[in-house]
């Protein structure tokens, strides 16, 4: 019987990949465990092993093909003695299946009505209008920011698990070991508490460490040093010494990695005096804010997001591009409601604004970008204009960033409010693994839309 070999999912976030190379050709006999192809995922180039034995009957996807969706048939294996004539029959329906799915997916988009509200996106205040731009992923922007700062300042170094030889567990430090050598790009054992302490001591000693946590979930092993050692020493020493350093890594939910690996620490760190806390959304912000973080004389918690790593944005081509902390960015101007978010929450905020526009509701969308300091003024000015506010974040609802903003708005703009502020957050549960439950646990665009309608009484 002919078996279809499907494009495999090789990472939690992989939706499509590049079929980089075929290691077999039609007619080859394959046994279980043989490497049949090399596939490039969002994280790595991986070898694809055959799980069963068979003969390569037909290769359906040429090597070098990019954007091959997971589960697309890429080859057909036959058994010994099986005629290749059966192949056309076997491959035809299989190839038709994903195509049908694709048209189904695009159907609702085509049916969208024209937006009645005009969308005004304010130019970025971070660089002059007319600056040359290039497309970059968040991943590339982060690496460029670190590499540029390491070229500029000898005391900056990167340390963490798998940052050097492995090129980064999420490929953020790709190529950095080659450029800077093992003195400045340092692999550590799996000992977060230890290396966070060592890095903090090194910062006391006058260096500027960048500590990568493979994910911020593992920084909980080290949180004592982040808070008790890094954040408080400047104060405790009466200003004599502090910890000029960056703690960075992916934060929040990825995709189906369960309760211990899916937690948003934004509100946790934002509570700590002595820390600065950054949680960007766009690649340009990742770049400009990372450069600022490295130059800042304080410990900076830099919260990244795995799902955003592969997302592309326009990034300015400038030799010196930094973005100051404490300046929110207005992504979209509007008059009816203010949506405030940060990090991956911006995805829902912007999607919601698009949907609301179709229904004639004009939303102003603000990206806080830094959570300590917070740009209250931009938020308050917007709320005074729209008289309504919805906050969006992936973290838990109790003592959230949204709670804090609501209190601030209440105190400083009470008379301007036409409705109570609504906080859209992740649900008050540990992250479940099951696909359907995980979707429910996360904040959704629909919830943001509903909240905006509620505060605008629509």
């Amino acid at each position, binding site marked *: 019987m002919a078996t279809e070999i499907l494009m*495999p999912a090789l990472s939690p976030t992989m939706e499509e990949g590049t079929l980089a190379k075929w290691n077999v050709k039609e007619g080859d006999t394959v046994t279980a465990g043989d490497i049949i192809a090399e596939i490039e995922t969002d994280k790595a180039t991986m*070898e694809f092993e055959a799980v069963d034995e068979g003969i390569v009957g037909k290769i359906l996807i040429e090597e070098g093909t990019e954007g091959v969706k997971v589960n697309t048939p890429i080859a057909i294996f036959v058994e010994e003695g099986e005629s290749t004539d059966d192949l056309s029959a076997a491959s035809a329906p299989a190839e038709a299946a994903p195509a049908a799915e694709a048209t189904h997916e695009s159907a609702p988009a085509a049916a969208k009505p024209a937006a009645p509200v005009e969308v005004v996106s304010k130019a970025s205040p971070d660089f002059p209008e007319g600056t040359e731009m290039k497309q970059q992923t968040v991943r590339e922007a982060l690496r460029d920011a670190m590499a540029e700062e390491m070229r500029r300042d000898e005391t900056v170094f990167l340390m963490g698990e798998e940052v050097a030889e492995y090129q980064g567990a999420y490929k953020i430090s790709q190529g950095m070991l080659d450029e800077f050598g093992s003195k400045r790009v340092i692999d550590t054992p799996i000992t977060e508490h230890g290396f966070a302490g060592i890095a903090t001591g090194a910062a006391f000693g006058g260096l500027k460490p960048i500590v990568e946590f493979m994910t911020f979930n593992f920084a909980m*092993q080290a949180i004592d040093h982040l808070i008790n050692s890094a954040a408080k020493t400047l104060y405790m020493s009466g200003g004599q010494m502090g910890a000029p350093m960056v703690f960075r890594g992916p934060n929040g939910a990825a995709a189906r990695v*369960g309760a*211990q690996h899916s937690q948003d620490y934004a509100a946790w760190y934002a509570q700590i005096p002595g820390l600065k806390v950054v949680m960007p959304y766009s690649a340009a912000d990742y770049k400009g804010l990372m450069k600022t973080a490295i130059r800042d004389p304080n410990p900076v918690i830099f919260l990244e997001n795995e799902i955003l790593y592969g997302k592309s944005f326009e990034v300015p081509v400038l030799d010196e591009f930094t973005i100051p902390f404490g300046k929110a960015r207005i992504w979209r101007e509007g008059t009816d409601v203010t949506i405030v978010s940060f990090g991956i929450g911006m995805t829902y905020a912007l999607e919601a604004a698009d949907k609301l526009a179709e229904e004639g509701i004009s939303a102003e969308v603000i990206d806080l970008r830094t959570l300590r300091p917070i740009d209250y003024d931009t938020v308050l000015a917007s709320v005074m204009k729209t008289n309504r506010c919805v906050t969006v974040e992936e973290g838990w609802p109790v003592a959230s960033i949204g709670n804090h903003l609501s209190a601030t708005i209440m105190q400083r703009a009470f008379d301007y409010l036409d409705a109570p502020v609504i906080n859209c957050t992740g649900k008050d549960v540990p992250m479940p693994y*099951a*696909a359907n439950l995980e979707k429910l646990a996360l904040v959704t665009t629909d919830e943001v839309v509903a909240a905006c309608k509620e505060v605008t009484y629509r």
Partner: protein
Amino acid sequence: MAPRKSASKTTSSNVSKDELLAYYKDMLLIRRFEEKAGQLYGMGLIGGFCHLYIGQEAVVVGLEAATKEGDKRITSYRDHGHMLACGMDANGVMAELTGREGGYSKGKGGSMHMFSKEKHFYGGHGIVGAQVPLGAGLAFSDKYKGNDNVTFAYFGDGAANQGQVYETYNMAELWDLPIVFVIENNQYAMGTSVQRSTKSPSLWERGAAYGIEGEEVDGMDVLAVKDAGERAVAYCRAGKGPYILEVKTYRYRGHSMSDPAKYRTREEVQKMREERDPIEAVRSILLTGGHASEDDLKAIDKDIKAVVNESAEFAKTSPEPALEELWTDIYA
């Protein structure tokens, strides 16, 4: 104390046919199960992280052979083999991997987080090293209650560098806790080889600093593992305190599903598979010792495939958890 290297070798002479067949079946079940899990992951039916145990089967099968009812076990995220070896149901494990209602955690835990009170399996932990003090706590509870149960705490060579392991060693010895610390040294922590993470020549000898006995074991030899397990268990049951087994093993597959595999050569993996495979070793004892024929083994293979296929079918057809489950089990 007298730490030592384990001397046992695979000698079939004093091992019964039934015992050999049982090890063969248990190891084969894990291997076929894991291969199937890899397939389901590739098809998108399993999400997130999925750490396969292929190559390491002799470790859990050998050690489980040294346990008695009431003994406890706890491990990391690379946990499928441990669950099957302690008698948990393949259907329930596979359905947890697909995040379905029929899974051991009703689909809420996933590959890394499964538990079975009935089988005294205390998880499935995602934070490297966390299961070590937790395991000592389980042992503490048995000692407190005054029974003679033993806890097996499994952790990796990478985890062996975590500070909490050494805090635990100190207290476990101080309080004579009945725990076997099993270091599954598969030579790599993700892409970092043991040589790149420590300069200490062996991991089990670190116990000496705390006065803990231990030994190194050939983890590709299920009989050697079982022997060492029996020694460790006897020591713990006698109330002498903890014991360390550093079991030298090897994982054939990537760390999780996405692994660029640049940190070791294809030849290194191939050589292990060809020369040291734990299942092949028992298979050859069975055949050369006249305990089983090729046909007998084929029949076993077929039965195991059927069990695994059924688990996959169950895992595909078991429904997703009810939406209300999002809000249950947060508080007791």
